[in-house]
């Protein structure tokens, strides 16, 4: 949770919640395509709460749920 990790990166991406179907790609993380922004926010918060994880809003509008 917010631990300084610039010297020892150990971030784990748990999920990516996007509105663009071309960004739903493979990988370890869960990729979710939301219908609209409201749904995107709700899904993000639900996952983050359940996994006790942090959220990054990317400039392109996607949400990353990650654990530090």
């Amino acid at each position, binding site marked *: *949770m*917010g*631990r*300084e990790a610039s*010297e020892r990166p150990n971030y784990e991406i748990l999920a990516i919640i996007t509105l663009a179907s071309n960004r739903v790609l493979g990988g370890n993380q869960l990729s979710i395509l939301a219908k609209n922004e409201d749904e995107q*926010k709700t899904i*993000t*918060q639900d996952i*983050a709460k359940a996994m006790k994880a*942090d*959220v*990054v*809003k990317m400039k392109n509008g996607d*949400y*990353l749920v990650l654990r*530090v």
Partner: protein
Amino acid sequence: MKEELISSEHIVMIVTAIIVGTLARILTIKQDYRQYPSYPNGLLIHLITGFIAAALGAVAIPALMTRNFVAVTFLALAIQQFRDVRKAERESLKDLENTEYAFRGDAYIDGIAKTFESRNYFALIVSFVTALTMQLVNSKLWVDIVLGVSIGFVALFVLKRFSKGKTIGDIAEVKQGIVEVKDSELFVDGIYVSNLLGTENAQKLFQKEGMAVVISPNEQHFRITLDNYGQRQAALFEATRAIGVKRYHFTRKEYEEGRIVITLIPIIKDIDRFIEAVKKTPLLESVKKSHAVMETNLVGKE
């Protein structure tokens, strides 16, 4: 049978030296805001090892005086024992790492463990010096005791001065920072800190309850010490220990002026306590750079 018994002078010498040595350990256990060693069991362990160290130092002189030269080799055993104290301390602190608000960090743990080892040597040396003084003076009993105790305390004072460390407050200015949340990014005094505030809840929470301090080094060369990851981690640890963490804690360094940011959402909203905790964070031995040593002009070097 009587020849094998220790003389009453030696008993007085040993007891006095043990008392002074143990007192040296008691006086060097700091029970401050860091609450370490923990009370009561952690404290008791260190008092007992201090007592053992004092006893070892106290019996060295009588052992020599009775021509028991082999017995002095137990001092080597004592050193091994104290190294084990350091090891045990390190293991115990490392085991606790995942239960704290923030990591202490390996550098801080190393510093604490070394300090605990060295404090046992304090007890040993002080009791040894006390016993040696009493043996050398060899006057009336009360004169021996008074001089032994006095020289013992002088030795303690010198050792304390020698091992005294500095704190962040000695080399830097610690001030409150202004927390600013722009979308999902967090800034303190205009310094970018993190973009982990992706949700509106997190942004509101940080804007409302977030607190920050900014550490500005007094001299440029102190930046090397303050920028060290272990040192920053130690400061963050002390801050989280003092005021708690509700959610999020970050440190960030800024390279233009060498400022360090520590920010978090505390349980107790007390900025003075926050600043004080950061100021009083010890400068780690493994991180410290002696400017005087760096400037030493070695023979044959320009």
